C-alpha cells in the first residue's frame, strides 16, 4: 500500500534558526496537505499543494511539491517559539479518497 515517510522525526533548533521537514511518498500523489499539531492539541490544516513543482508561502513558511509529485517539503525561516509542534504531511493518491499521513516531525525551539 501507499507509504508516506517523513524526516526527520525530531528537530531541536535555536530560536531564529531555519527548519525543514521532508516528506516522501512511495506512489505519485494527486495532492499533498500539511497539518500542524501544537503540543496537547489536534492537527490543524495548513495548506494543500496540487500542481507539480508548486511552491506556496505563508509568512515564514514555504511549502514545495516535487516535480514528480512524490515528495514535498516545509521550510520555516527564522523559527519562533510559536512554531513549536508536530508537522504532518498527508498525501492523497489519484486512486483513493483517503489521506495517508506521514509520521510527523516534532519541532522544538529553544528561546
Amino acid at each position, binding site marked *: 500500500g501507499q507509504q508516506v515517510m*517523513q524526516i526527520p522525526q525530531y528537530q531541536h533548533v535555536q530560536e531564529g534558526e531555519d527548519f525543514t521537514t521532508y516528506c516522501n511518498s512511495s506512489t505519485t500523489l494527486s495532492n499533498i496537505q500539511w*497539518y500542524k499539531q501544537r503540543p496537547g492539541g*489536534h*492537527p490543524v490544516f495548513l495548506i494543500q499543494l496540487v500542481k507539480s513543482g508548486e511552491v506556496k508561502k505563508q509568512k515564514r513558511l514555504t511549502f514545495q511539491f516535487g516535480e514528480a509529485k512524490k515528495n514535498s517539503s516545509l521550510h520555516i525561516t527564522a523559527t519562533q517559539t510559536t512554531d513549536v509542534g508536530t508537522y504532518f504531511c498527508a498525501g492523497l493518491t489519484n486512486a483513493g*479518497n*483517503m489521506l495517508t*499521513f506521514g*509520521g*510527523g516531525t516534532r519541532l522544538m525551539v529553544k528561546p
Partner: protein
Amino acid sequence: NAGVTQTPKFRVLKTGQSMTLLCAQDMNHEYMYWYRQDPGMGLRLIHYSVGEGTTAKGEVPDGYNVSRLKKQNFLLGLESAAPSQTSVYFCASSYVRPLASGANVLTFGAGSRLTVL
C-alpha cells in the same frame, strides 16, 4: 459553529471493558474518519465513512467497530478493550469536492485520550 466535537475527552478502562467514543460534526460534511495517534507512529486510520449508513475499514481496524446512523455522528466502539488500545483518538470530517478546491481537507476534533489498564 462547533466544528467537530468528541466525547469523552478522557477515559480510563480496565482490560475487557467496552466503551463508545462519540464524534459529532455540524459542518454537513459527507466523510468522517477515526484515527489513532501513538508516539512516533503518526496518525493511523481506523475506520471511515463516506456517507450516512456506510462504513469502511482503514489501516488498523481490528478490535474496533463503527456506526454512522446519522450524517453528523460517527461512533467508534471498543467491544473488549486491550492495553494495546491505549492511545489518543481523533475524529475528523471532510467535504466531498473537486480536488482543486480542497476535497479531503480534514477538520479534526480535539481528541479523546483513552487508557486501558
